């Protein structure tokens, strides 16, 4: 009986997912794609019949057959199939390295086929730093199983014991007769059927030759020559261009509509389907003119704004409801919650503080885009999404189709940062294409992306803690309203910590963001730890070390402060030094920041950052450094100046001119220290590198100025209403 692998619970994304039907894998498509190549079937049963969508019971399960995951062609080239998508985090490279390693092939022999729902096994999506810890080992296992099967096949051809054979450089060799057979020669002309084995020995990281090395980005040349086709670059013969009419605010109702002028334009077709109003035109210019020519009047109801957002979120909070960032969003507390005991003022200090984070935008440089084509009873959509199968299911549901009738293709896209989980543009393009009777391309404008995508949730964090004068932490409470429970648990030693997440009724469309609520909760916790340290006159590093025994977190903390020169870093009114650390999803991070304060202009500039990182065995040190630097730079935005300004159901700053994102002059000198733990499983690294920068900077600002900034963004260019005005700009 074939086994099925269940998707780990962690893979449930924050948005609700429609019930998954099943993975459809059509063998004919493989053969079309790969011509004379062979499918390496390593199960003892007929894999294809079982993968045709039967028997999965609607659960999120994926095939265990090697053949679903990798294919060795007659020329020895290996194709690897995964539903994970490349969005700049460099997994096209790092996953190929791991397969190359297990198959003992050079990196270039591996081609990754990613995010095409007709070609790859089901996958819940690319989020939660799960590619490296989940997909990595899965593909390694499949490749190692294939390696064993190739050895056994060669052994049969030579009538020898497989254990006497060697395997390297794409060939199996027989030392006894000095003969060798390439992988392609071994699979050619026959259907390789072997029993898969999950006990196939994996090559340990200590012996890695391809994995663990700084292999450059796969297909890097295509990006410096402009030849890579992103979702918004896809073009089809006879393709038309679409635009969608947007209301003037959220939750608006349409009062009147006049489409006369638009419909008079040459080649323009109006599409109306309930609340959905769009146009298609022969060219992009005309589509823009047509949508602008539509006269619509809307009524937008009164809605919350920045001014009252935190009051609103707290007033609308429910205790213990499921929410962002984890399947289990129940309050985390000790079996018998213990209220912080009232300390004697002589030997302990009790503090309570609130911290806030604003709604911020992912603002991926490539906005949402899709090209949809209805042809021969099948809908095919090229789009930028982190959840190709999720988008497929949205399309299935919206158009009442069978999953086999929908194919979603995800070309490597202009990033997402957690912001492209939904299929908005795909649905819109598909609806327009159905009406147009032609393929339709739809690319959101920057303003649409800033308004109609979703946001990183705003949140309010309330912390209480008690510390004895010798630095011992004796009580801890941390509540989060609305933004999520990721990163809510404290890594510090304290008896009976109470942490609680309160879901609320968000006034804006909100969902995932890089590291989810970890950024907000780390900002609150690491700032509060700093406040506790200062309350007893203790060095913030000493205070952390005193209450920390988690060895991996201590290791990055020690590595960061050593590289940074913490011992010699004495803050002055114009120069501040701060520290923060944290861990989640197998990533361990410590961040030291140096800030310069200009009293005359009341401005803060981040001068230097040292970040130490450890996430088990390093798969690609170059990619890992790149992710850490990128996370720090992105974290500077939310930390210092990014905020969505909204009122009356409208986004007030839906442009890069008014929504400031980090630029060249904002990026400090950054040094990354990687700790490579070859003895530990590799964890994901795309997210958690972002959590340390904001509190480290806030703590550095305090060290220099004595001003404790408890609201993110801490030094906005444009003041944000509803929070204490910051004494600093940036």
């Amino acid at each position, binding site marked *: 009986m074939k086994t099925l692998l269940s998707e780990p619970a962690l893979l449930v994304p924050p948005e609700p997912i429609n019930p998954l039907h099943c993975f459809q894998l059509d063998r004919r498509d493989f053969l079309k794609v790969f011509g004379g190549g062979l499918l390496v079937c390593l199960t003892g049963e007929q894999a294809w019949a079982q993968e045709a969508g039967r028997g999965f019971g609607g659960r999120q399960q994926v095939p265990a057959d090697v053949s679903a995951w990798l294919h060795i062609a007659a020329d020895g080239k290996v194709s690897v199939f995964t539903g994970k998508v490349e969005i700049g985090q460099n997994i096209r490279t790092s996953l190929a390295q791991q397969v190359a390693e297990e198959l003992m092939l050079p990196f270039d022999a591996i081609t990754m086929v990613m995010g095409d729902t007709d070609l790859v096994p089901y996958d819940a999506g690319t989020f939660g730093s799960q590619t490296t810890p989940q997909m990595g080992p899965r593909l390694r296992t499949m490749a190692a199983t294939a390696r064993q099967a190739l050895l056994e096949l060669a052994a049969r051809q030579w009538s020898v014991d497989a254990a006497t054979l060697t395997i390297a450089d794409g060939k199996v060799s027989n030392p006894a007769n000095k003969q060798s057979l390439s992988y392609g020669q071994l699979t050619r002309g026959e259907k390789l059927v072997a029993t898969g084995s999950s006990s196939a020995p994996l090559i340990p990281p200590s012996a890695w030759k391809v994995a663990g090395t700084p292999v450059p980005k796969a297909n890097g040349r295509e990006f410096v020559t402009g030849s890579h086709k992103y979702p918004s670059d896809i073009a089809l013969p006879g393709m038309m261009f679409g635009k969608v009419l947007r209301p003037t605010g959220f939750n608006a109702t349409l009062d009147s509509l006049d489409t006369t002028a638009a419909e008079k334009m040459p080649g323009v077709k109006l599409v109306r389907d309930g609340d959905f109003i769009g146009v298609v035109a022969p*060219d992009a*210019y005309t589509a823009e003119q047509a949508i602008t020519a539509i006269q619509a009047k809307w009524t937008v109801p009164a809605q919350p704004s920045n001014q009252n957002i935190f009051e609103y979120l707290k007033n609308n909070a429910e205790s213990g409801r499921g929410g962002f960032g984890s399947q289990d969003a129940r309050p985390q507390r000790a079996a018998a919650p213990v209220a912080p005991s009232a300390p004697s003022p002589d030997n302990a200090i009790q503090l309570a503080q609130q911290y806030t984070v604003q709604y911020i935008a992912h603002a991926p440089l*490539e906005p949402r885009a899709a090209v949809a084509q209805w042809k021969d009873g099948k809908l095919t959509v090229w789009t930028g999404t982190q959840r190709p199968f999720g988008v497929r299911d949205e399309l299935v549901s919206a158009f009442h189709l069978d999953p086999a009738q929908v194919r979603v293709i995800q070309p490597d896209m202009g*990033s997402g940062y957690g912001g492209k989980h939904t299929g908005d543009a795909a649905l819109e393009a598909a609806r327009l294409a159905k009406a147009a009777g032609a393929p339709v391309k739809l690319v959101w404008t920057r303003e649409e992306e800033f308004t109609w995508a979703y946001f990183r949730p705003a949140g309010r964090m309330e912390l209480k803690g008690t510390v004895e004068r010798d630095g011992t932490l004796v009580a801890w409470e941390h509540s989060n309203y609305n933004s999520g429970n990721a990163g809510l648990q404290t890594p510090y030693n304290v008896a009976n910590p109470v942490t609680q997440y309160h879901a609320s009724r968000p006034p804006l469309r909100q969902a995932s963001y890089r590291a989810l609520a970890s950024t907000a909760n780390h900002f609150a916790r690491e700032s509060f730890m700093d406040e506790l340290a200062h309350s007893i006159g203790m060095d913030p590093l000493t205070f952390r070390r005193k209450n920390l025994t988690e060895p991996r977190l201590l290791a990055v903390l020690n590595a960061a402060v050593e590289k940074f020169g913490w011992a010699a870093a004495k803050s002055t009114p114009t120069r501040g030094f701060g520290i923060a650390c944290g861990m989640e999803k197998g990533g361990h991070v410590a961040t030291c920041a140096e800030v310069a304060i200009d009293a005359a202009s009341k401005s803060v500039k981040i001068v230097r950052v040292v970040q130490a990182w450890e996430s088990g065995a390093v798969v690609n040190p170059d990619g890992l450094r790149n992710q850490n*630097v990128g996370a720090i730079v992105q974290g500077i935005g939310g930390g210092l100046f990014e905020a969505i300004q909204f009122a009356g159901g409208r986004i007030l700053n839906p442009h890069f001119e008014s929504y400031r994102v980090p630029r060249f002059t904002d990026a400090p000198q950054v040094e990354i220290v990687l700790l490579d733990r070859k003895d530990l499983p590799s964890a994901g690294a795309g997210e958690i590198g972002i959590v340390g920068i904001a509190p480290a900077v806030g703590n550095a600002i305090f060290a220099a100025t004595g001003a404790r900034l408890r609201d993110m963004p801490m030094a906005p260019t444009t003041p944000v209403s509803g929070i204490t005005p910051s004494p600093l700009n940036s």
Partner: protein
Amino acid sequence: MSDFVLNVNGAKRRVSARADETLLSVLRNRLDLTGTKYGCGEGECGACTVLMDGQAVHSCQILVADAAGAKITTIEGLEQSGKLTPVQQAFLDVGAMQCGYCTAGMVMRATALLHELPNPSEAQIRTRMNGNICRCGTYPRIVDAVRQAAHSLAKGGAR
């Protein structure tokens, strides 16, 4: 619709477009030169940067009528006979990208910058490149790539 003749990457390209259509729209949607990216359409992100008579411009802010007659170079026009320019090569060697969506605009901006300032300081690179957004935050590496390209050009690499 009017007919325009654009000089793009050394070739004369005849195209029918509206006179007030942007150069970006014409390049991407009518000439299939999709290496030049749409990021904002407002001249705020630099993803659409191309060279017009050697100057870096936001192609989303240039009307096609105003581009006719100028010598336009897009990212597709840099590589010659399979050889990357020193700027392209430096971006590749340094790994100065993550998702790569900003890369074309960055390369074009850096190409113009090094033409004007062959040996820029780090501060000059940051200031001159500041109109180009990399949302993935690879700025430090991009600065390194521009410096490396400057060194390469100084040693006689083709511009």
